[in-house]
C-alpha cells in the first residue's frame, strides 16, 4: 500500500518513519521554555519558583530588578518572572487545574474571592517566620492583606502581602489653574470648590453650534472612569473606617448603592453631564487618547483635573516631563478632617498547591524589605506600602505629590474597594448604571434605586453559595 500520488509515491512505512523522525527531532531539538540562567539553576539543584506577575514596561522592569537581586543574593532558590496578562483569570484556571505557579501578583480586589475559595495559602504562621508582620505595613494598606468571609465569627486571616500600593487623589494642571485665576498652590478641598474650579476651567470653541463644542473641562467623571463607585465615599466623608459603609456594608453583607450619600453623589455627577451638554460631552470624550499615550487628555490639557493614582507621574515623566501639576486629596463635602481617598494595591500571594511555600515566602520576605519596596515604589511612582519610609526615598521620589498619598495611607477615612468576592460583578453592574446616569437616561436616584436589588441579588447568590457548601470556606 502506498500513500500519495504516483508521481510522489511514498510507502506507508516511510511516511510513518518520517513522522516519527519529525516528532523525535522536535522533542530533542525543539524550542525550550526558560533561559540559560534558569536551566543552569535547575541543573545545579536550586529550587526554581514560577512567579506570575501582571506588570510590563517600566513596572515589570523594576520587578525584574528585585527578582534578579534575589536570585543573586543566595544560591538555593531561583525565581522565574513570568509576565501574565489577565492574571486574575489565568491564575483561577491554573489553581483550579491543580497546576498553579509558586507566586502570583494579584490585585487587592481578587483576595476575598480567592481566600473564600481556599485558593490561597494563609500567611498567619508562615510570614512571621520570615520576619514579615502586619505591623510593618502602613495602616491603610493592612486591610487588603486580610479577609474574613461574611458570617464567620473568628478573626480575619492573613492571605496576601502588598508589593506596591497607591492611593487615589486629585491631580490638577497648575498652568490651567493660573490661567483662570485659581491658586495653583492650593487644590480644591470641598466639592463646592471643585465645582467652582471646574466651571472656571470649562472652555468652549467660539462660533460652534449649540452650546459650543468643548475644548477643555475642569473635571470630567468618565476620565479615566476606573473608579466610578468612589464618589459616595467622598460625599459620606470616608468609608468603613469613618463609620460609613459607602456602597457596601460588609458587616451586614448588604449593598447600599441606594444610600443617601451615593444618590447625592450620582446627582452631582449627573449635574456635570447636564451642564456640559450630553452631545458635547460625548463628542469631547471621543477625542481623548488612551491612558498611557501622549494623547492622554490630562497631558493635552483637555481635562484640568483628574482623579488618579501616583503612577500618573510616570505618564507625565514619559511624555511631558515639563508638565506642571499639583496633587491634593480628592475633596469632600465639608473639606474638614483627615483626607479621604481610595487605596488601591497590588498584592503577592502563594496559591493553594504551590510546590515550595517556604521558598516562596522567603522570596516574598525579600520583596518586602525596605530597600526593595522603595526600589519598586520609586519605579512605579508610588509610595512605599510600609509604615516607615526613608527620608531619601521621599526626598528623591519622582512624584512630587507622594506625601499626599502617604497621608491617605495613614488616614482613618481612607477606604478600599468593597471586600466581597463578588465585587467584580457588582462593579460591572454599577459601571453600566453609572454610564446611564452620566447619559442622563433617568434621574440618578431612580437608577440607583433600581440597581439596589440587583446588587443585593448578587450578594445573596454568593451567600447561598456559602450556605450550599455548609460554610466551608477558606476565609
Amino acid at each position: 500500500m502506498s500513500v500519495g500520488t504516483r508521481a510522489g509515491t511514498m510507502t506507508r512505512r516511510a511516511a510513518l518513519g518520517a513522522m516519527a523522525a519529525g516528532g523525535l527531532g522536535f522533542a530533542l531539538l525543539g524550542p525550550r521554555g526558560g533561559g540559560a540562567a534558569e536551566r543552569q539553576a535547575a541543573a545545579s539543584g536550586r529550587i526554581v519558583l514560577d512567579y506570575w506577575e501582571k506588570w510590563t514596561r517600566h513596572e515589570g522592569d523594576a520587578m525584574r530588578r528585585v527578582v534578579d537581586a534575589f536570585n543573586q543574593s543566595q544560591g538555593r532558590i531561583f525565581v522565574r518572572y513570568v509576565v501574565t496578562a489577565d492574571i486574575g483569570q489565568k491564575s483561577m484556571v491554573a489553581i483550579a487545574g491543580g497546576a498553579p505557579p509558586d507566586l502570583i501578583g494579584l490585585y487587592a480586589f481578587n483576595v476575598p474571592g480567592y481566600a473564600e475559595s481556599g485558593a490561597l495559602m494563609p500567611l498567619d504562621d508562615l510570614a512571621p517566620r520570615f520576619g514579615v508582620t502586619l505591623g510593618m505595613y502602613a495602616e491603610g494598606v493592612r486591610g487588603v492583606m486580610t479577609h474574613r468571609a461574611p458570617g464567620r465569627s473568628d478573626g480575619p486571616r492573613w492571605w496576601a502581602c502588598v508589593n506596591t500600593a497607591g492611593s487615589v487623589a486629585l491631580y490638577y494642571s497648575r498652568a490651567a489653574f493660573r490661567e483662570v485665576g485659581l491658586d495653583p498652590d492650593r487644590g480644591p478641598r470641598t466639592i463646592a470648590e471643585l465645582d467652582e474650579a471646574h466651571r472656571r476651567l470649562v472652555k468652549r470653541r467660539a462660533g460652534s453650534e449649540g452650546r459650543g463644542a468643548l475644548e477643555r473641562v475642569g473635571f470630567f467623571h468618565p476620565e479615566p472612569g476606573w473608579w466610578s463607585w468612589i464618589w459616595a465615599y467622598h460625599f459620606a466623608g470616608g468609608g468603613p473606617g469613618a463609620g460609613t459603609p459607602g456602597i457596601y456594608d460588609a458587616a451586614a453583607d448588604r449593598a447600599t448603592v441606594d444610600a443617601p450619600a451615593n444618590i447625592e453623589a450620582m446627582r452631582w455627577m449627573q449635574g456635570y453631564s447636564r451642564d456640559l451638554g450630553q452631545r458635547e460631552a460625548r463628542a469631547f470624550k471621543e477625542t481623548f487618547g488612551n491612558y498611557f499615550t501622549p494623547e492622554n487628555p490630562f497631558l493635552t490639557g483637555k481635562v484640568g483635573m483628574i482623579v488618579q493614582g501616583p503612577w500618573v507621574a510616570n505618564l507625565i515623566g514619559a511624555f511631558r516631563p515639563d508638565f506642571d501639576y499639583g496633587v491634593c486629596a480628592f475633596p469632600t463635602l465639608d473639606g474638614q478632617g483627615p483626607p479621604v481617598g481610595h487605596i488601591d494595591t497590588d498584592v503577592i500571594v502563594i496559591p493553594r498547591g504551590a510546590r515550595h511555600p517556604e521558598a516562596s515566602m522567603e522570596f516574598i520576605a525579600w520583596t518586602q524589605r525596605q530597600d526593595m519596596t522603595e526600589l519598586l515604589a520609586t519605579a512605579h511612582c508610588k509610595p512605599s506600602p510600609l509604615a516607615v519610609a526613608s527620608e531619601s526615598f521621599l526626598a528623591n521620589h519622582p512624584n512630587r505629590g507622594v506625601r499626599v498619598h502617604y497621608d491617605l495611607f495613614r488616614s482613618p477615612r481612607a477606604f478600599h474597594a468593597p471586600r466581597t468576592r463578588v465585587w467584580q460583578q457588582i462593579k460591572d453592574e454599577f459601571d453600566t448604571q453609572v454610564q446611564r446616569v452620566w447619559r442622563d437616561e433617568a434621574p440618578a436616584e431612580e437608577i440607583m434605586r433600581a440597581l439596589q436589588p440587583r446588587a443585593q441579588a448578587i450578594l445573596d447568590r454568593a451567600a447561598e453559595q456559602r450556605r450550599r457548601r455548609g460554610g466551608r470556606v477558606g476565609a
Partner: protein
Amino acid sequence: MSAAREARATLTGLAWCAPWLIGAALFLFLPMGLSVYYSFTDYPLLEPPVWAGATNYARLWDDPTFWRVVRNTAWFVALSVPAGLIVGVVLAALLGGRVRLARLWQACVFIPTLVPVIAGAMVWMWLFNGELGLVNRVLGLVGVRGPAWLVDETWVLPSMVIMSLWGVGQSVVIFIAAMQDVPAYLYEAGRLDGMNPARQFWHVTVPMISPQILFSAIVSTINAVQVFAVPYVLFRKPDGQNPAGHYYSMYLYESAFVYGQMGYACAMAWLQMLVIIALTGLMFWASRRLVHYRGGGAGA
C-alpha cells in the same frame, strides 16, 4: 476480501484514525459531557462543583443582563446574516461577470477576511470615532453630521452590522464559484423566454446557487450567534461596558472566567448550542422548499 483481511483493514483504518478519535474523546466529547453536568452545579471554578439542580437554568429567566445580551445578539443575527448574504450575492454577481480588473476587485473583497479580527476591530474603532473618524469625515463632506457610532446606544447595532460586512469576502468567493458553474443554456433559455438580466438573476442565478446560499446562511448564523472578539474590543472599556454592545458570548465568558461562575456559564453555553441547533434545523427545514439541488431535485 476475506473476513480476516477485512478485519485487518478495519483495524488499520481505526489505528490511523486513533489520534483523532482519542483527541475528540478527550478534548471534545468529555468536556461536553462534563459541561452538561456542570450546568446543573454550583461551580465557582476555584472550589469543587456542588449539585444545584436546575438553579442555573432558572436563574437565566430572572437575570436582566442575560435578557439584554439575548436581545442584542438576536438583533445582530437578524440583521447581519441577511445583510451579509445580500451583499455577498450582489458583490459576487458584480465581480463574477465581465468587469475590468475582476480579479483585482475580487482580491480587494477577499483580503479583509485575512486580517486578524482584533486588528480589524482596532481599525474600525478609529474609522467609527465620532469626532476623528473617517466615516464621519466623509459624511461631513456631504453635509451629514455623523453619530457617535460606538458610543451612542442607538448606533451600536448598525455599526456592528456594517463591521460584519467586512468579512463577507469568503461568501463572495463561494458565490462567484457557484455562479460560474451555472449552465449557460439556462440563461439562453431565459433569454428566449424574454427574461431581462434582473429576472435571469432572480429566476436562474439565485435558485442555482441556493445550496451555497444555504451553506453561507448556516455558517454566518453560527458565527453571529457566537460573536465575541469585535464587541469585546470595542465596547468593554475601563469605565464600563456599553450595554448595547454586550453580546451573549461575552457574558458567557465573563460569567465563567471573570465572575468565576462556571456552572452558570455552562448553562448559558448549552442554551446557546440548543439555539444554534434549532436555527440550523429551521434553515434546513425551510431549504426543502427554497433550495434547488441540481440533479437531485429540491430538498434532496
